[in-house]
């Protein structure tokens, strides 16, 4: 009757003793499973594809295009790419695919991304599978404990992702050459790279951490008009974070696949001029 009702302390979820006696874990009649199923399928497809490509250690360079999975290339065993993103930081001891070194960063960025977290917590973890659908776990501690507390490092992956996006921008500039490294040319691949880099930047800048850093952390926007405008701009991108997460995921895979097709000789890059 008063405001001070003690919450009941027995464990359990919607079927706890004190709750309305309903046996079903949920009563939703719509196709609530569709969204998590599509998410799972999409993410799995990308994981399978990217694992294959990352470990392949082949067909990642077809002048002037370098696959975004292999850029920058940080080991000695990389193919040398003329004026390309070679930076032999790791020396000769690195034996397996050089993609593994660099993919850590975009992978980490996406793995700790606030959108992807939602997507895989729902689709793979079923925590929860959908709103108001009971989750199957007995206990739940969220992101309070190791390892999930590490999700908080998202910001550092964001900084790294900025660098990676910078290198990919450089790669896109290089794509305005032809096979003979002459400047001022364009092919279909150049367009693929352009589209990809735009989406990569849009996704990276729409990041929640970015929104926080550029202005969200401020208490008084009125004292920081420039950062306020930047925050508004990032906020508009951020509203489409999910869309950008997916389109940039697809575009990066497509860019890589395009390089693969050209490098493996399936077809020649159509040149415009």
């Amino acid at each position, binding site marked *: *009757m*008063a*405001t*001070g009702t003690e919450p009941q302390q027995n464990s359990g979820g919607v079927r706890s003793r004190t709750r309305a006696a309903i046996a079903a874990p949920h009563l939703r009649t719509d196709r609530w499973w569709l969204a998590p199923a599509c998410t799972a399928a999409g993410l799995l497809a990308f994981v399978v594809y990217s694992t294959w490509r990352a470990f392949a250690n082949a067909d990642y360079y077809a002048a002037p295009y370098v696959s975004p999975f292999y850029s920058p290339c940080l080991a000695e065993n990389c193919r040398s790419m003329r004026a390309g993103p070679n930076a032999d930081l790791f020396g000769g001891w690195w034996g397996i695919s050089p993609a593994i070194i660099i993919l850590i960063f975009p992978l980490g960025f996406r793995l700790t991304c606030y959108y992807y977290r939602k997507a895989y917590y729902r689709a793979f973890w079923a925590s929860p599978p959908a709103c108001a659908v009971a989750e199957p776990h007995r206990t739940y501690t969220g992101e309070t404990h190791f390892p999930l507390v590490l999700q908080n490092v998202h910001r550092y992956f964001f900084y790294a992702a900025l660098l990676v996006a910078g290198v990919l921008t450089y790669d896109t500039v290089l794509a305005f050459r032809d096979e003979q490294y002459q400047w001022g040319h364009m092919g279909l691949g150049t367009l693929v790279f352009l589209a990809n880099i735009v989406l990569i930047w849009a996704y990276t800048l729409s990041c929640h951490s970015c929104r926080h850093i550029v202005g969200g952390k401020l208490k008084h926007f009125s004292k920081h008009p420039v950062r306020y405008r930047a925050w508004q701009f990032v906020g508009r991108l951020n509203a489409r974070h999910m869309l950008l997460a997916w389109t940039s995921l697809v575009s990066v895979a497509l860019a890589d696949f395009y390089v693969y097709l050209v490098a493996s000789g399936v077809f020649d890059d159509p040149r415009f001029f």
Partner: protein
Amino acid sequence: MSVVDRQEWDVVVVGAGGAGLRAAIEARERGARTAVICKSLFGKAHTVMAEGGIAAAMANANEHDTWQVHFRDTMRGGKFLNQWRMAELHAQEAPDRVWELETWGALFDRTKDGRISQRNFGGHEYPRLAHVGDRTGLELIRTLQQKIVALQQEDFKETGDYESRLKVFQECTVTRILKDGGRVSGVFAYDRETGRFFVLEAPAVVLATGGIGKSFKVTSNSWEYTGDGHALALLAGAPLLNMEFVQFHPTGMVWPPSVKGILVTESVRGDGGVLRNSEGKRFMFDYVPDVFKEKYAESEEEADRWYEDPDHNRRPPELLPRDEVARAINAEVKAGRGSPHGGVFLDVSTRMPAEVIRRRLPSMYHQFKELADVDITAEAMEVGPTCHYVMGGVAVDSDTAAARGVPGLYAAGEVAGGMHGSNRLGGNSLSDLLVFGRRAGWHAAEYAQGLAARRPPVDDAQVDTAAAEALRPFSAEAGGGGEPGPPENPYTLHQELQQTMNDLVGIIRREGEMEQALHKLAELRTRARRAGVEGHRQFNPGWHLALDLRNMLLVSECVARAALERTESRGGHTREDHPTMDRAWRNVNLLCTLADPTGGLAATDPARGQIRLARETTDPIRPDLLALFEKEELVKYLAEEELYE
């Protein structure tokens, strides 16, 4: 039988809307242990429905605004029937009450230079309403709610108990005020969740229960508005003042039927919305009454210029006081120029870009989109009058909010009468809640503390009687009420009551119809004694309604009797048979009291009625306040002898 749970408090506040919470905060801050009782959950009170804003002469938007101008507007709006001292206090104190909210965390919309933004509203000479989009009431209630929590946190730090000095009894209903001789000794209440009875012993009780709208069929009011405080005061022996004045808000939704009556905020018009009839005509220009002729634009061009340049143009007639607009809409519909569903058109879509509409009127946009499937940025709304507010209420002392004749009883907010005269201006209700809520809490605390050890004891017999009265609906089916006839469904009785009041004592009143209404009320009263309910006492809405019926019937009778008595048209009271304002009625108050002063309803003859009416002459308006008006204006309102005193 009186083994009901009892607790001792210094001040009990009945109602947790704006006035109740403000009273509770004041009483607690002045050191009184304070309990708040409300029918709903804490924070759900009807105050959340207030949209437009809080009227206060802060002069943020127009530097010429002062309390004197606000006072003048309030008196004009109320057609000079207001208790002028209340209107004076209200205008003087409203700015402080608004600023105080900011120190408790409220976030109003801002002006360019960082002060509280103020908007235009009907009847206010200057932009005066502090607002938050169109959800000002929500901001008000949340701020007060959070202030209460803040006080509870302080108490927790000191005593280890959040509720040691300020406690909210939510989802509880008070059915009787208990008295020791003439003085208040406590309240009898039941807990809606469990159905258990309990008594709060307290020497001071503040009524802040809001209005009576649920006695009408088409209303913007929520289910709580069953006139509980009005009835409790009557039953405790306090008189009600000027109950004939019921405000019909000109713009309620008319379609679909399930939302008929839901409010369309006046800010739609304040921000540029216009009223048109089925011929597309802005008809309000034809309905400017003589007393307002100089203040309102005569052409559409002038009216439209006013939004940009209010200092050199007169305001559009859409912003006339609510009673005028409501009557005009009623007349248009009657003349066959209404909209398809019996209202008129309120249009913003042709007046503002869609983006601006969505930003300035977000809840209206949503309300129409979700409830009526109408996009107000693309088409006009259909609106018509809806029962919105009762100006009448408990007769109180202007300074202390103390109810007349019952020491220890206070009333503030809509349940108190007098402040708004015959018609309330938009925006004046929220400021009324704050100004008089505070005063009621202050004086209730002072009174309770003044009694110290001589607190009036609670009489066991009264508790037993109250319990028996509350349990009667359960025995009705067994014929236990001692009344011949079959048990009645409380829902049916309620619907019939609403229909009666709507049709017969509604916006336009006629002598014959009101007499008919009184007959019908008498019949309903007899049948209401047989109102029976199924089930048990735990959260039983049928039972709750059966108990609320007593209050609605009492209050409805007050409205009908007073409306029949007042043979003129003024503000919220329009008589077809007496269509003009009569200066002789200017200084007459109508007081309703219980015919049976013992408060025993069973003893009265239901057919004869339970309410007695008395006339009373009001105090003359203080000369310095009268001097704020031009002589030519006063002539229209005041009787000859009042003018030359």
